[in-house]
């Protein structure tokens, strides 16, 4: 997402776009503490909706979807979700407060029997962002982790993705809105619109994100 947005933002007419990149929860915390960026985009719909309820964000607009995959080193023998429950498996996932972490836990809760618990018991690190998960995998510290498919694409030389059954897939939807009190609400609305219909929409599609 970062690369795609960086590419298309430089083409935005009407204003210079500055991207502040961090975990969705960290950005939400900043807005709650009074920070006023013009636009807020998150990797889930929950955080924007919460902010909207708190009166801090306009009605959020869904602009992209993605899917969760299992990322493993290229030479791993993991083929399916059940393999993650094996004894001795070391997993890195997102922490609960981060979208990737909550999506992961949502997925695991959909597994039959105690599979989800067994997999959770193999977790060795709750990373604050996807970069951290990918880092643990490329370093060989963890055997597998849950990330977005677009993140595996970025390091396809070292990692490969194990697709998940469609019925387990959580609804990974990115949403954005205009921050209340933004300095340039007009430009902000244009930017948000451009995420679904404009240069940024194209860039996102090229990066592997699907339309909502």
């Amino acid at each position, binding site marked *: 997402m970062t690369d795609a947005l960086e590419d298309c933002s430089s083409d935005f007419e009407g204003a210079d776009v500055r991207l502040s990149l961090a975990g969705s929860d*960290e950005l939400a*915390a900043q807005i709650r*503490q009074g920070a006023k960026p013009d636009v807020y985009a998150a990797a889930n719909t929950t955080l924007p909706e919460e902010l909207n309820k708190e009166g801090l964000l306009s009605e959020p607009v869904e602009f992209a979807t993605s899917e969760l995959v299992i990322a493993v080193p290229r030479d791993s023998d993991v083929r399916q979700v059940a393999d993650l429950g094996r004894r001795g498996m070391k997993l890195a996932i997102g922490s609960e*407060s981060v979208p990737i972490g909550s999506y992961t836990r949502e997925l695991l809760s959909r597994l039959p029997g105690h599979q989800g618990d067994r997999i959770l018991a193999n*977790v060795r690190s709750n990373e*604050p962002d996807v970069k*951290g998960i990918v880092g*643990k995998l490329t370093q060989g510290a963890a055997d597998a982790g849950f990330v977005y498919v677009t993140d595996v694409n970025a390091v396809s030389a070292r990692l490969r993705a194990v697709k998940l059954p469609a019925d387990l897939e959580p609804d990974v939807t990115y949403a954005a809105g205009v921050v209340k009190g933004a300095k340039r609400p007009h430009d902000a609305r244009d930017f948000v619109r451009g995420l679904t219909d404009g240069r940024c929409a194209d860039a996102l599609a090229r990066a592997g994100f699907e339309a909502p």
Partner: protein
Amino acid sequence: MRAFPALLALALAVALTFLTVPIVAIFVDSSPAELIDSLGEPGALDALWLSLRATAMALALILIVGTPAAYLLATRSFRAKPVVVTLVELPLVLPPAVAGIALLAAVGPSGILGGAVAAAGIELSLQTAGVVVALTFVASPFYVRQAMAAFAAVDRTLLDASRTLGASEARGFVRVMVPAALPGLTAGTALALGRALGEFGATLMFAGSFQGITQTVPLAIYAKLGTDFETALALSAVLVAISAAILLSVKLVHGREALGGAPG
């Protein structure tokens, strides 16, 4: 020239305000009752206990290995000395992220010594041991540097006197040099302690973040930032209190001399 003293006072007032308001805010942003309540969260207590344990272990390593090393560097001259001193001080100026990368490249699972570490049956990545390694790496230069200065400042004739009075060099080191250098050693320990307690980047990259195993207080603060600001505040407050207590006790025990004031 009454204007000049007034300007000096103004500068101090600005500096003081800038430095103390954020710290005071930690305690004031939420009520004490809520802060204490948040500390009761299992994640919070685990983080505190882990931070204390890991810091204590790191500090023990630093003191045991760093003190004789600093003594050697302070009292002997050899050709490679400037290089050795620079190497010892290097982690001081490394950004924590770089320290994390360095540790991964060295003793991480894919690191140059990773195989040897694993063969020895030692697990660092994603383990408390890894946290201790990260803390030791970033905090040791803070101690070694102070210890070197402290030993170098001790009158060398004291050691000569000790030897002529019948004590071997080792005995002299323990009974004379270390006690004579104690204010500086204590200051160095305090600095290293502060650095280790606050260490974040290298720990996250090298050891990961897992409650009770690797999630130290700074990592817990970061994890709780978005969803549980109260607990983040509470943990921050505890760290501030501990750091203040450390600084204060060093000053009280060893006077102004220990932390850069004029000899008292």
